[in-house]
């Protein structure tokens, strides 16, 4: 395979939160800590010399291998409420969904309150893009009630509504999913890439060469990824990683070989890698077969959401949920159908390091 990579992967585990929780006693503004902490004192030892015992100890210590660093676990929070979505075509209960979302985000960030958690996702001056998935109309697109809940919490965290952009590939897809297309600058914007446009220079990584949406590259400072948990007839499953195909001009080119390594490569493109800060996967009524089109006979009331900052871990957990449901229903596993989502493992490999698919390194929290 020809490698025309122009980007370099940053190492896994990822860098800690850009704004870690403030230690007790440190005053922060809007919950964001910009100080690097108390300056270290310069210590001067009265006796700079060392004894023979200490010298030997130091030499042996240096010769011994350092203990292996234990990478932090990637947390995936599954938040559910059995009464979230009433049977039938009605929308989910907005108050319950807000609670489900609050519990998930607060748990994911170990925050004192949901708003405190949201404040750690973006600064008030930043433009936050919500990348929804609208391919399947109202039936199986990112639920509008979930997006409204996210918008509400972002605003309460200090993000002005004019700094929130809900986007996907096409205006017509957004409209079909129930989002009011609007590019008014003083309100929440809903805009498709077809209206916003694409960059004219290629973004290249590995097997992928694409033009990126200008909404991603120019408008947004941060992105919250809002995919839907569902089966996919070609690449196996579609969630966090696959949803970013909606940021490129030529997703049709990258479905061969069950999307491997293309899905992982697309997620390596710098604007995607640098700007996506959180995934909130809509699992209110996921679909275990027949996707990505809406097939109500194969969807079931999971009544929840999956959230993580690690898209690979989230996809791995979501894939297991789909496989478990398929097994329950007596449907063959994806591997037998030659559409096992191998791209999830590729996204975790040493060339990509987009996250982890190792169950031992994933902390699954169910609330």
């Amino acid at each position: 395979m020809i490698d025309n990579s122009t980007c370099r992967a940053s190492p896994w585990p990822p860098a800690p939160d850009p704004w870690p929780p403030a230690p007790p006693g440190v005053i922060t503004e809007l919950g964001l800590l910009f100080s690097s902490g108390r300056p270290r004192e310069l210590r001067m030892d009265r006796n700079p010399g060392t004894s023979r015992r200490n010298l030997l100890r130091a030499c042996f210590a240096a010769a011994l291998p350092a203990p292996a660093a234990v990478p932090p676990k990637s947390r995936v929070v599954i938040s559910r409420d059995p009464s979230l979505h009433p049977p039938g075509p009605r929308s989910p209960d907005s108050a319950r969904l807000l609670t489900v979302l609050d519990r998930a985000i607060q748990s994911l960030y170990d925050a004192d309150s949901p708003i405190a958690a949201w404040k750690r996702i973006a600064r008030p001056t930043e433009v936050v893009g919500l990348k929804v998935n609208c391919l399947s109309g109202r039936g199986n697109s990112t639920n509008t009630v979930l997006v409204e809940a996210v918008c509400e919490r972002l605003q309460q965290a200090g993000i002005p509504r004019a700094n929130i952009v809900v986007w996907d590939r096409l205006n017509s897809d957004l409209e079909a999913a129930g989002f009011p297309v609007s590019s008014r600058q003083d309100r929440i914007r809903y805009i498709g890439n077809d209206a916003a446009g694409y960059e004219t220079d290629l973004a290249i990584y590995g097997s992928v060469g694409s033009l990126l949406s200008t909404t991603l590259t120019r408008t947004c400072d941060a992105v919250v990824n809002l995919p839907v948990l569902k089966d996919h007839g070609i690449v196996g499953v579609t969630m966090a990683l696959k949803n970013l195909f909606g940021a490129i001009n030529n997703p049709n080119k990258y479905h061969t070989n069950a999307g491997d390594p293309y899905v992982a490569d697309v997620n390596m493109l710098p604007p995607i890698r640098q700007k996506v800060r959180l995934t909130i996967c809509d699992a209110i009524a996921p679909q275990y077969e027949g996707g990505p089109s809406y097939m109500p006979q194969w969807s079931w009331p999971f009544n929840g959401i999956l959230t993580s900052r690690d898209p690979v871990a989230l996809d791995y957990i979501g894939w297991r949920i789909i496989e478990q449901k398929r097994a329950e229903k007596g449907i063959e596993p994806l591997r037998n159908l030659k559409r096992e989502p191998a791209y999830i493992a590729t996204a975790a490999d040493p060339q990509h390091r987009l996250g982890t698919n190792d169950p031992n390194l994933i902390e699954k929290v169910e609330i």
Partner: protein
Amino acid sequence: MDRRAFLKTATLPCLAACAAERALAKPAANDAQFTIEARFYEKLPYKKIKCKLCPRECVIDDHERGYCGVRENRGGTYYSLVYSRVCAAHVDPIEKKPLFHFAPGTMAFSIATAGCNVNCKMCQNWEISQSRPEQVENTYLPPKNVAALAQQYHCYSIAYTYSEPVVFSEYVMDTAEAGRSSGVKSVVISGGYIQEEPLKQLCRRVDAIKVDLKAFSDKFYKEVVNGELKPILDTLVSIRKLGTWNEIVYLVIPTLNDSDQEFKSLARWVKTELGPDVPLHFSQFHPEYLLKNLPLTPVPTLERAKAICDAEGLHYVYIGNIPGNPAENTYCPKCRRVLVERVGFEVRAIHLNRGKCQYCQQVIPGVWDGLLHL
């Protein structure tokens, strides 16, 4: 001549040219006018379809598109979104295609729509071939208008080129029919990645097909083209059997498809399966798209490719993209005299008489009736 007559003579051609430019530049507004039901597909359960146009056979869900990006499943019916949706239109010499045994010295009204069914890392037209139709500027040009414009610009043929005509095959077929009824021929410039049935229907309507044979190894097709070699070879054999005029272009890319063994295998296959008279063009590669890391093909490499194929007994082996190279000329395989002298896209002299060498009367295969237009 009075002043009025002089102004009329001087300005009318300019006004006509400007009007044509304006007609071509007019942006398209209505998507519905470009949408027709695709001709080659199979309906599957649950509103899925299987595309039967190219060997890829995409199985496509509702609301999704195929690999080419220009065909969409809408509620279980498959549509082409590029019928009459032209994103490039130029008047080119036929030598630019290149077709060297097809009416040399004539012009081709050349059109393209967005989309392609492969993804070559060296594509020089990736801005249109790798885009969806709504991502490029388009002009509405129904088949009859194309035929009329070709006549207006004194073009001997209409060329379907730049991107991949297979993905707009419905439009090609209808335009070729419109052209034929107006006395304009049609030529297709293609990668040849097409199923047999649509190929048959295409061959019935067009007069020549130039196939870009990207390499002679399946590895190259898999890694650089995102396709397969065998269907292309099958296409070449089918075109031969169907009797449509065919030429082959092989873009020589340093380190990727330039070994002696590959040239030798290619030459032997062409001679055995297609015969020694099929023109074979070795073209120089220019760094483009995803292969900007490789250099221009050295001229000696192209000359080596030609020498190998000459030695294997092919009669018409050319070197392309090197203006002034003697291997741009057509030579009589019997008396070795120059029959068509070329420099770049320009034809300087033709020494053919009704398709025969004017010196030794050797029959030279090709389509030569267009010479009347010279």
